[in-house]
């Protein structure tokens, strides 16, 4: 029972973690892309379509990644090159992604999908209790953790990460020092799009291998909120995503028990718990100030 719950928690948390780690990098560069939901749902439809038509979930994953990246380039072009308002453009991107994915996916509704196979290492996967949890996941679960570690290392240990944080903190100064603010932000936006696409593909290939319109069901927005509540720190993102996943699954298990608590209240719990815990651990105001990208959402126009 416990093992089963943990396994479902992991599958619930992984798409959030994938989308959020991408958005974290985007926001660290000073760009607020509210289109995560739209990029995710595009990744979901593209991943499903390619998986079904080629029979290969791995190709489907690649397709999801490419779809998310492609949609993010629209956002990048509109907000970075044309310097449009980031909030409005991000919202538009979400609506655009939801609409286009519904159109593209119309023929796939009801088509049975192919599930991404889970890892199976003889010996390791068969270890009682922990074997399936540690060694029996699908590849994207491992990818999500690898991404968190890689992003953490990149942001705080490499020069490229330093430049990215500098661009997010003060784009005027970064420009004055000769860094290519717009190029850095394009790369960050593309990374964010690819990650959101992966997260979407996970939903339609691994979580529930089928396509229904609007199947992201608000997960893009939760990923966005997680980024903010984690104070833009990758490690806290893991806590947030898994906490959210865990409370979601637990309240699902609690609903049929008839505890006398309205089901609507239980549905609300994951959001409440995540916000409360993340706010509590980001109690250090000074550190939060340092980690908040000061240029978040601000347009940049070089003066020349």
């Amino acid at each position, binding site marked *: 029972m416990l093992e089963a719950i943990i396994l479902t928690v992991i599958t619930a948390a992984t798409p959030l973690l994938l989308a959020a780690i991408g958005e974290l990098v985007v926001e660290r560069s000073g760009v607020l892309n509210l289109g995560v939901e739209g990029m995710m749902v595009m990744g979901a439809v593209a991943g499903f379509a390619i998986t079904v038509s080629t029979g290969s979930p791995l190709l489907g994953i690649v397709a999801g990644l490419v779809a998310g990246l492609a949609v993010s380039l629209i956002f990048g072009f509109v907000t970075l090159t044309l310097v449009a308002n980031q909030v409005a453009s991000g919202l538009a991107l979400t609506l655009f992604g939801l609409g286009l994915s519904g159109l593209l996916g119309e023929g796939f509704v009801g088509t049975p999908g192919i599930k991404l196979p889970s890892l199976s290492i003889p010996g390791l996967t068969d270890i009682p209790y922990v074997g399936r949890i540690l060694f029996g996941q699908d590849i994207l679960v491992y990818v999500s953790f690898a991404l968190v570690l890689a992003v953490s290392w990149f942001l705080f240990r490499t*020069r490229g990460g*330093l*430049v990215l*944080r*500098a661009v997010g*903190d*003060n784009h*005027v*100064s*970064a420009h*004055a*020092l*000769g*860094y290519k603010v717009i190029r850095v932000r394009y790369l960050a936006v593309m990374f964010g799009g690819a990650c959101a696409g992966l997260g979407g593909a996970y939903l339609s290939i691994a979580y529930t291998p089928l396509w229904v319109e609007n199947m992201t069901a608000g997960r893009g927005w939760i990923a966005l909120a997680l980024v903010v509540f984690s104070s833009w720190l990758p490690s806290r993102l893991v806590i947030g995503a898994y906490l959210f996943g865990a409370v979601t699954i637990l309240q699902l298990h609690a609903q049929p028990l008839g505890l006398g608590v309205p089901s609507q209240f239980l549905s609300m719990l994951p959001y409440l718990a995540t916000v409360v815990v993340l706010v509590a651990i980001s109690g250090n105001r000074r550190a939060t*100030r*340092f*980690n*908040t*990208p*000061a240029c978040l959402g601000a347009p940049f126009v070089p*003066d*020349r």
Partner: protein
Amino acid sequence: MGAGAAERTHGSVQRIRTGGGVPLLEARHIVKRFGDNVANDDVSLRVMPGEIHALLGENGAGKSTLVKILYGALQPNAGEVLWKGQPVTIASPAAARALGIGMVFQHFSLFEALTVAENIALALPKGSDMKSLSARIETVSADYGLPLKATSRVADLSVGERQRVEIVRCLLQNPELIIMDEPTSVLTPQEADQLFVTLKRLADEGCAILYISHRLEEVRAICHHATIMRRAKVVAETDPTTETVGTLARLMVGSEIGEVTRSKGTPGAPRLILKALSLPATSAFGVPLHAIDLSVAGGEIVAIAGVAGNGQSELFDAISGEREAPQDGMVTIDGQPVGAHGVNVRRRLGAAFVPEERLGHGAVPGLKLSENVVLTRHGTGEGIASGGFTRFGLAGKIVEAVTHRFDVRKGPPDPEARSLSGGNLQKFVVGREVDRTPGVLVVAQPTWGVDAGAAAVIRQALVDLARAGSAVLVISQDLDEIFEVADRIAVISRGHLSAPKPAEAMSREEIGLLMAGGAEKTAGGAHAH
């Protein structure tokens, strides 16, 4: 002699310092246009090795544009730059740094969220690891008397310390030329003295410094050579040590700076009265106001001197109504007790207020000048806003009038407030209020960061306003300014205001004593602690 100095033109005064060697940096016939606005018109400049070279000019004369071109942040439309005699194209700041040109910016180019070491690493070429870099930062900074801790966050540093970070960042690039844009404008006198020691040492070691400033005294004290710009052109080159502050100022402004002419006024009835105005401090860093008594009559200027942070901003807020006093009787404007009323009530009675911080407090950066006019006049009943509609046509006319009277230099007719240079914006925010001919004008730091020519215009406007019957209260840290305009002077110290005395009866020494705490004893003459 003044006329002779003004006629010296570019090239006619050659300073022989290094035996006529090759200039380290030479700019020839630089032209830079922004739309129709010419910021640099055929500008030439030569900086010799080991020289502290001043670049002087009024606000908007084109100094900042020129140094941005030399640092690669802007590209000229015409002209060439020579480095050690060789023509070079400085395509980017990175290219400038590679040549050996470093820059310390006027508005710091630091990243607040990052540490000192990270900030410096960003300006250095790739490849040095953080640990050895941190060690180098601490050695070099201690060596030059600019101690820094590599792991401090910039957000936690004082303004002076931030400047150290910028300077150390330059030094670690082993520059041959450091460009400094108004480095002392943000420093305390002690910090500035320390900076001069560092600069002299750098020059002795052979590093040239291009020093932009309009503080003429310090240019005379530390610079070997000065290039003076006016209205986008180089108008003179000179050795500042042989000039006086007066002759330098004349070269900069292009004409005799109008001495403020001041006839003896006859004070009329009191128009602004503060009576036992006391307010608690709003934060741990705030200053409480202690029973302040002051009366300003129509026709006179009263000035409040004091070291920054002794309650000036609290007093300004209490008089302007940004912070309301507990009792109406504490502030009286033209006979109406308004202490517990807000800004609009006071403005409607004919009062006007110019706060110290011009961008953000005195004007909204992202709004046009005409919109900024509306912001201080919407509630004054002058017809600019009525029945829920705003007459932007009228606001535009006011902008035109202020522009004309105070010589506000701006590109388009109605630009955003943030696009104006500091001095020009100051002229605008003061002009906007003076244009109303207010019965009571309260102005904090009226000429902060404004060049000599513009300062004279602003001060004359204040004097003229008072002589026409208004009551003018000036809060300033600039004693020269206070003696130039004030009829009576009071001193604020830790929230106590000394009893004002006629300017003729005040000496600088006396003001100094009052600033150092004497004001608390003479405050109101009544209460002791």
